[in-house]
């Protein structure tokens, strides 16, 4: 019962930006998006993923984002991002603070990750670099004790993303390499590769399609396929 209350409270907290977005429709950049995806990896096999993301610009210097993913692989993610930002003569400098909880229910493990990074966003390129730390704990929670928590205190996060057109355009295609996305923050030596695009149907609706590839062994120097995901969805901008 306690667990259900906790999950409900966290879900409510994370969806709060979406609710706020609906009651404050003045700014056109508030948005909520829904995505579904097919994924596969060598450990879980095939799976379907369902995502809800909410984006909330507080003011011109600060925005927030909340992400929820549930998967048929029985791995579920809650994440929130806080992003102070500063406009520069060219582009925008920002700090991204991510908190993410990932429940690998199927394997009875849970991790809590914090990542903070410095980013520079331009029309064609987005670059981010920073650090993360992770706490791994076995489930169920009754196993919790100091000994049961495994702390990975320092790791690096990075993201390099290039767009074929300026980001303000109505359609775009992007290529990206990063060890983090809205639903997973991997270790430093585990990059993931992304190819994605969007198309603005009208002022409010944007459709997105993206693919992700995860290799194993890149830094064991015998790289090969580990997993992939194809994801499609729509975003509504208020």
């Amino acid at each position, binding site marked *: 019962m306690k667990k259900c209350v906790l999950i409900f409270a966290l879900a409510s907290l994370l969806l709060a930006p979406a609710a706020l977005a609906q009651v404050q429709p003045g700014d056109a950049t508030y948005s909520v998006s829904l995505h579904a995806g097919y994924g596969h990896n060598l450990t879980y096999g095939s799976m379907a993923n369902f995502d809800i993301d909410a984006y909330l610009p507080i003011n011109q210097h600060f925005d927030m984002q909340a992400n929820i993913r549930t998967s048929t692989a029985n791995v579920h993610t809650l994440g929130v991002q806080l992003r102070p930002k500063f406009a520069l003569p060219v582009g925008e400098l920002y700090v991204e603070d991510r908190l993410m909880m990932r429940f690998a229910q199927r394997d009875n493990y849970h991790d809590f990750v914090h990542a903070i990074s410095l980013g520079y966003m331009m029309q064609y390129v987005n670059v981010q670099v920073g650090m993360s730390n992770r706490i791994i704990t*076995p489930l169920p929670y009754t196993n919790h004790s100091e000994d049961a928590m495994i702390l990975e205190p320092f790791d690096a996060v990075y993201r390099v993303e290039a767009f074929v057109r300026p980001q303000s355009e109505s359609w775009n295609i992007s290529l990206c390499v990063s060890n983090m996305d809205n639903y997973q923050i991997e270790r430093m030596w585990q990059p993931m590769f992304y190819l994605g695009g969007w198309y603005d149907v009208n002022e409010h609706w944007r459709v997105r399609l993206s693919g992700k590839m995860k290799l194993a062994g890149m830094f064991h*120097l*015998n790289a090969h396929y580990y997993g992939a995901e194809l994801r499609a969805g729509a975003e509504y901008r208020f």
Partner: protein
Amino acid sequence: MKKNIQIGLGSLFLVLGSIFTACGPDARLDMVGMFAGSSPTIDKRFEQSMEYNKQAGYATIQAPSENYHVYVCTDTHIHQTRKRWEHFINAYRGDKLCPLTVHLGDIIDATTDFGYIEEALEQHPLTAILPTKPDTLMAVCGNHDIYFKQWGQFVKTFKTSSYYFIVETPSGAKDLFVVYDSADGTIGSKQLQWLRETLVWAESQTFRHIIACTHTHFFKRDGSQGHTSNYTLEETYALLNLLTEHGVEMLWSGHDHSREITQVKDMTCIIVDSMTEEDDEPYYMVVSMGGKVEYEFVAVP
């Protein structure tokens, strides 16, 4: 603009230079393997290992005593010299309670280094490092052992990278050692299934201890792991759950070059120090397999 182009071209030459120097006859890093592995994938290596296991069977080794010793080393990275490796061999040969030794991978360092192993087999008293000979060395496949298409040479020398063996004491008590191949940073779907089936079978037996041996470590807990890669997170949790839920008492691994002991539920995960010639503080581990499993680390001169 001109400066940006100069910086860009400079970086490009630096990267290309690194790649080309890594492709020479004495290359120590298989940079091409970062993007397309030159050895077979883990699923194919596993199939080859199973073919050998099917023919040769799984070894049962007789222990000289109820409380016997297992000598464990890792990351020797043999390259041109092998003094520490030889010291280790002499140490376990001098221990009458030691029926076997385990090498946790990265036996050699890079391309051409299997030549040093073959040379050792021919010229040095290490005349028998194969499992079927009196010196029973149980080898784990490490990532350095398969760089530069070297899987073929690993198989030629050590036959299999996924197997188990049983050690039986004079009173009939049995210990199970499960060796799995993590040299790619993933153990693959087929080997994962085999590992699951093996551990489920082991639970139905009456093993005194169950020990798992592999190369890649699970966690990234300290600065020593800055240069070493792990499993994907999905696989980390799946393997942790599998091993801890099926009575594995200890997991021995290497790869990190630095000792680390982590307790996960009832399983002790031990990363053993490296024994490279360049290492300032090389150690190996001596495990006492009795009613309890106890271990100590021994410095190598």
